[in-house]
């Protein structure tokens, strides 16, 4: 392979000092030929929204896990005072019955004083409650079983401690559960929708870039470039655009959650703060949540690169 030196009558590499300033690695597909900034903005917005829904779903799913663990193992027995009945004896009887029931762990009756404290936030503390017929509560923690045997406890109480009312929070719990599940499913759907919208935007941009660079593609083919080589040239650009957009959107989402967490911490003591805290677990996403955001951002960048590569490759296959 030395046709050129023989043509030019010189040995290759001899007395040749290539200009140090030689420009030699310009991308074959010019960056300016791609609607780059618009695509970065679209990707950033889509990533931001996708991270928001993913983060929201993570918060709700995490919070609902917490309720499940906390609440499902705890039941309350309520004893309503009845005229002519010794309420302390009734409480003692119910406690004794509950202790004997299968699967029951810890049983603790709230004292009259504790029960009054529970009512204080609603009734104020200036009130003398001794005269009021306040129901008494017994908190029962079930043993750490997969499915606590609440039914057995209920039967035992009905047989031996009439007047004791068992509340296993089931209804309340299942409603919250359903809601949390619905929110997670809804968020996943939104997430999918946003990813597909973004994919389509990338598709449009790629096709636009290919149309704008038709001449370049043709020349590359003529000088012997393989389809895979050409699609790699496009992929490089789109991966870079995807990284820029994805990281920008992800950073905004992380900032959003950090801000919301700070805001909710400041808020918790005010009215309504506790309900929001119960639903979202104080808005703190935790390390895992932020890691998920980073993953989403990076996955979107690679999705962008891979998408454009596939589109270019398929398009090139169809050329002649």
């Amino acid at each position, binding site marked *: 392979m030395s*046709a050129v030196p023989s*043509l030019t009558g010189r040995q*290759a590499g001899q007395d040749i000092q290539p200009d140090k300033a030689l420009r*030699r690695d310009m991308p074959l597909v010019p960056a300016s030929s791609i609607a780059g900034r618009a695509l970065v903005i679209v990707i950033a917005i889509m990533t931001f929204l996708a991270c928001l829904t993913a983060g929201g779903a993570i918060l709700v799913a995490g919070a609902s896990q917490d309720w499940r663990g906390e609440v499902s193992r705890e039941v309350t027995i309520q004893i309503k005072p009845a005229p002519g009945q010794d309420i302390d004896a009734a409480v003692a009887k119910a406690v004794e019955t509950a202790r004997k029931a299968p699967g029951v762990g810890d049983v603790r009756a709230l004292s009259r004083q504790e029960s009054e404290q529970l009512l204080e936030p609603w009734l104020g503390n200036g009130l003398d409650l001794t005269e009021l017929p306040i129901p008494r509560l017994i908190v029962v923690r079930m043993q750490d079983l997969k499915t606590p045997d609440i039914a057995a406890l209920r039967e035992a109480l009905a047989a031996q401690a009439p007047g004791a009312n068992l509340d296993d929070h089931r209804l309340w719990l299942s409603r919250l559960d359903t809601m949390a599940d619905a929110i997670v499913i809804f968020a996943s759907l939104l997430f999918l929708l946003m990813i597909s919208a973004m994919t389509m935007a990338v598709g449009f941009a790629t096709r636009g870039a290919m149309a704008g660079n038709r001449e370049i593609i043709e020349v590359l083919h*003529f*000088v012997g470039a393989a389809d895979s080589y050409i699609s790699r040239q496009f992929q490089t650009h789109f991966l870079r655009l995807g990284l820029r957009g994805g990281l920008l959107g992800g950073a905004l989402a992380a900032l959003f959650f950090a801000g919301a967490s700070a805001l909710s911490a400041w808020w918790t003591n005010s009215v309504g703060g506790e309900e929001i805290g119960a639903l979202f677990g104080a808005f703190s996403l935790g390390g895992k949540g932020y890691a998920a955001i980073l993953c989403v951002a990076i996955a979107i960048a690679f999705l962008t690169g891979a998408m454009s590569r596939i589109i270019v490759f398929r398009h090139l296959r169809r050329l002649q």
Partner: protein
Amino acid sequence: MGVEIVRDLSFSIKPQSFQFLTGPSGAGKTTLLRLMLLSLKPTRGIVKIFGQDASTLDKDSITSLRRRIGVVFQDFRLLDHLTTYENVALPLRVMGRVEANYRAEVVELLRWVGLGERMNALPAVLSGGEKQRAAIARALIARPELLLADEPTGNVDPGLARRLLRLFVELHKSGTAVVIATHDLALMDQFGEARRLVVGDGRLQIFDGESP
């Protein structure tokens, strides 16, 4: 379906041969070159390239065949955003070769075609003749087995045309088959022993070159 530009013609380009392809403007010279480059498919008839029927080739084999062919387009087809150096180095670059390995080769060829001072210039600021030389250098850089050149001396002065022709003849002597499309009679007369393929009215006449 439009009219047939060329029909009922048959010719072959032998390895290491040299021929001019000539005929009036619009006769179909560029069309024939494009058929040989596999950038056009014949509506009927067979194109065989390096012994293979072009219609049976898949994309990968077309790619590897194109690497054995150098082309100079009538309209140059330099990439506007690349410098002269980058344009000429393109065939080596798309093969995946490392830039440091071919830099000296490219620089040397550029100096030889008189573009040593224009290596960092973009095509937009090159003169017609400079673009033509860059296009020729790009076609030669990978040392093809077949060179297809469409009007390669259309934009240069007679002196430079002679030098370029000498370059093509040297290339031919070192083993490349050369096809030069031109209607420059003076140029053809400078290399009288070359075969001449003359297109006209859709037909092809072949004149074997006079023996030197």
